[in-house]
């Protein structure tokens, strides 16, 4: 585990957030606003999952904040009766950083999409992750621009025919999990919009993690990218593709664990469980960055395989905790006399038309 001892106590993601006195329900987190996504949109499923998982965190509703960018999924805050900001395209991680640094008593969520987080806001995403700001990022990946009516996105497959790419898109897509791991995120998970149980489990772990958590949510856009993830949903197709990971458990999948993940060079490959020795099967360790990265590389644009669950989780001091600790240390050191600051070390006085000898304290402030 890569920890730096900065004398920081190990805290959970919600440890400084006040706990709710009463039992809360999903409807307590439901705002009075009409939900306006397209019929069949995967966002509905995620919204339902979030509304029902938030009460299980047992934190005060008023200390919960959702910050979003721009895109279909970024309407999310309007539909939750928490504090929320629907901000500008790509910038939600930056806004959430300022909020999280100045308010340790809040649980701060960022809702973003593949275009918002990985295209216009790519810079803010990687920096929030590397700094390890205590925020939970829900990245809705539908591999298309929905709100602008169907252009390809930075996670679209190469060759995708859209309105802006009539001859097929040319640019290689991001793998959001690989990207987050490259930015040394301390928590990276993935879930499917329709998998209520799996999604809830990953979201809860992410919210309770202290530091920046990124959860990639595969989400269907029935209007502009219908069935994009169907191979991961249909039982016949998904059996050989969906790889759930559980910390401490050997990674096998399919009916009766038919397939297994084993090492190949510096990476991983899929084998038939019956054809490999039991000890050859990789045991999932979310603290092993190289393993997490190799797992992320099992997913490619054809979705031949996709790993779900918590791919990585480690403890590292968060930027916001460290920032507050520095300020706290400076404040405790005293010397916050404002007039003394303004005066500095060299002053002179004019009184009744005469210049009086200057006062020098003898110490430079620099």
């Amino acid at each position: 585990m890569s920890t730096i001892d900065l004398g920081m106590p190990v805290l959970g993601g919600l440890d400084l957030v006040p706990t709710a006195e009463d039992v809360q329900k999903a409807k307590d987190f439901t705002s009075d606003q009409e939900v306006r996504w397209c019929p069949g949109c995967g966002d509905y499923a995620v919204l339902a999952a979030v509304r029902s998982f938030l009460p299980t965190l047992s934190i005060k509703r008023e200390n919960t904040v959702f910050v979003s960018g721009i895109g279909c999924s970024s309407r999310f805050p309007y539909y939750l009766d928490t504090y929320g900001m629907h901000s500008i395209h790509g910038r939600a991680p930056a806004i959430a950083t300022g909020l999280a640094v100045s308010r340790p008593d809040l649980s701060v969520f960022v809702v973003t999409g593949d275009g918002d987080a990985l295209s216009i806001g790519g810079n803010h995403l990687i920096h929030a992750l590397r700094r390890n700001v205590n925020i939970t990022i829900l990245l809705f990946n539908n591999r298309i621009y929905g709100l602008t009516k169907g252009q390809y996105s930075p996670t679209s497959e190469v060759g995708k025919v859209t309105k802006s790419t009539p001859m097929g898109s040319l640019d290689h897509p991001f793998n959001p999990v690989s990207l987050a791991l490259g930015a040394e995120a301390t928590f990276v998970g993935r879930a499917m919009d329709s998998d209520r149980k799996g999604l809830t489990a990953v979201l809860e772990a992410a919210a309770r993690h202290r530091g920046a958590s990124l959860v990639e949510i595969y989400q269907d856009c029935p209007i502009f990218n219908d069935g994009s993830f169907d191979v991961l949903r249909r039982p016949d197709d998904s059996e050989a593709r969906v790889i759930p990971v559980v910390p401490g458990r050997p990674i096998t999948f399919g009916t009766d664990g038919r397939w297994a993940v084993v090492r190949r060079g510096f990476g991983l490959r899929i084998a038939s469980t019956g054809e490999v020795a039991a000890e050859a099967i990789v045991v999932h360790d979310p603290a092993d960055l190289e393993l997490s990265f190799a797992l992320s590389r099992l997913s490619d644009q054809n979705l031949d395989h996709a790993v779900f669950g918590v791919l990585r989780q480690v403890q590292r001091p968060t930027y916001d905790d460290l920032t507050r600790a520095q300020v706290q240390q400076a404040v405790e050191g005293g010397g916050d006399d404002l007039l003394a600051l303004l005066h500095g070390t060299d002053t002179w006085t004019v009184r009744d038309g005469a210049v009086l000898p200057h006062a020098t304290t003898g110490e430079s402030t620099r």
Partner: protein
Amino acid sequence: MTRAREGVAEDAASRDRVVIRFAGDSGDGMQLTGDRFTAEAAAFGNDLATFPSFPAEIRAPHGTLAGVSSFQLHFADHDILTPGDRPDVLVAMNPAALKANVGDLPAGGVLIVDADEFTPRNLAKVGYEADPLEDGSLSAHTVHRVAMTSLTTAALAPLGIGKKDAERSKNMFALGLLSWMYSRPTEGTERWLRDKFAKRPEIAEANVVAFRTGHAYGETTETFAGPVVVAPAVLPDGTYRQVTGNTALAYGIVAAGRRFGLPVFLGSYPITPASDILHELSRLKRFGVTTFQAEDEIAGIGSAIGAAYGGALGVTTTSGPGISLKSEALGLAVMIELPLLVIDVQRGGPSTGLPTKTEQSDLLQALFGRNGEAPVPVVAPSSPADAFDAALDAVRIAVTYRTPVLLLSDGAIANGSEPWRLPEAADLTSTPVSFGTEPNGPDGEFLPYARDPETLARPWTVPGTPGLEHRVGGLEKADGTGNISYEPDNHDRMVRLRQARIDGIAVPDLEVDDPVGPDGRTAEVLVLGWGSTYGPIGAAVRRLRREGVAVARAHLRHLNPLPANTGAVLERYRTVVVPEMNLGQLAFLLQGRFARQVVSVTKVAGMPFGAEELQELLRPHVSPHVSPSASDLIGVRR
């Protein structure tokens, strides 16, 4: 009035003011030398104004014109307004510094050069075919050839330090020499050197020895006229210190946080010439200040908006290119109606432009540079010390009216310095902000966009407030509830409400300085400025008045909203002249707002107006015998 000073010869000549310019290679430490001389002048009680000028390159090629860095200081026994047009004394540490600056030295001016640097190679580097020290081309000046480098290295030889370190101390030799010439106190500089190099005492000692050597050289060689005394200036009663604009802004932000009971959060990305505000505030964490060096300009303002949403005093600092990048986020702050301070330390533009030079060309961008109808109050300090009050005023507007406020400083204010009459404890009273904590709707509901009838401000209700959960965002808000609304009438109403809120901000009336002349009449011509042209306009107007010309002047602190009496003031004068360091942006604004022709006088050279230069530019418009021609009224551009 003046006090006797130890070490000042009794027969010392006295002068009412002196302008000194130190010029050298960008590695020669000219800024530091100028800063120290400034500190000495301040400690002595002179009024002063400074103008540092340096290249954007950190270390341009040695000995080239591109690498010349200079620092001009004007100090006086009376109140002065500008760093001075032309130096009385030019210190040139090499041929490049001489070539770049000698044109500004008037006939009879004193030139002090480091003769060691006038080698054939260095002369050739800047295209001198003959040595100007030998060819008579400097005969109009009093030239002192001082072998500063070799005198310094010889003096430091006993200390046994390296040749490079020894040569590097020659700027302290120059400072010592000038300190003797102008009877400056020396103890402060010696103490400062020992403090600055506390971790390398041998370097501290070398610098002190070089400084003393320069001082002794002046005293013993008898080739310099001196020492000259410039007596302390009797300014209005109060306690003073010397301050730069960037430092004054940083202190103003800390003071504003105290005044309104808000923790300060600065989100900023380094950019010239604004970075020193970030540096200064980063050192002031003991005042509860949080600084965040963001990944880019947008994250700088984004994080400040996030902090403001959480109830902090959100601040972001930048220069023009950064304002361009922050524009969209600034629009968000307009829409969600949160307090925010945005500081633009203007520099030469467009694009990367002239990073280290001054300009006032972001005014219209500040006023109008956003999509949609997005009014933002704009406040401009007029001098380095005034930046403190301007920051407090900007924050007052931000928190009272729940709005982002743009503060327009510039390079001349940021790096220039002057005496600052310090506020007293009574000036720093606290009036904490009250956050919205209770439902405010008629049926016991919370209306995040219900407005205070007087200020039209909405409640500032922060996360963590029970029962008042609500959402804000960049989409148009329904009046009152703040819910998303695409309703045509609602949008029309909200656009007008946002505008009315800014238009209704209370700002003091424009004060006009229009003394009754000897003939019992006031002026027919008004000179109107904003920002750092305050000093040059004041100095130019003073010069004209001394000639007997009646001329009024006024200076705008608030560019949006303009003071309520602005139109009436403009009406009172036959001619209104507006000097600016842009192509006439305020003039354009006034003509649009008041359908009133004004005369635009402009300079966009990366340099402030000189007092004499502006006097001559104003002269055609203020002459009592000349009636305004048609071209005057359209706006004469320089």
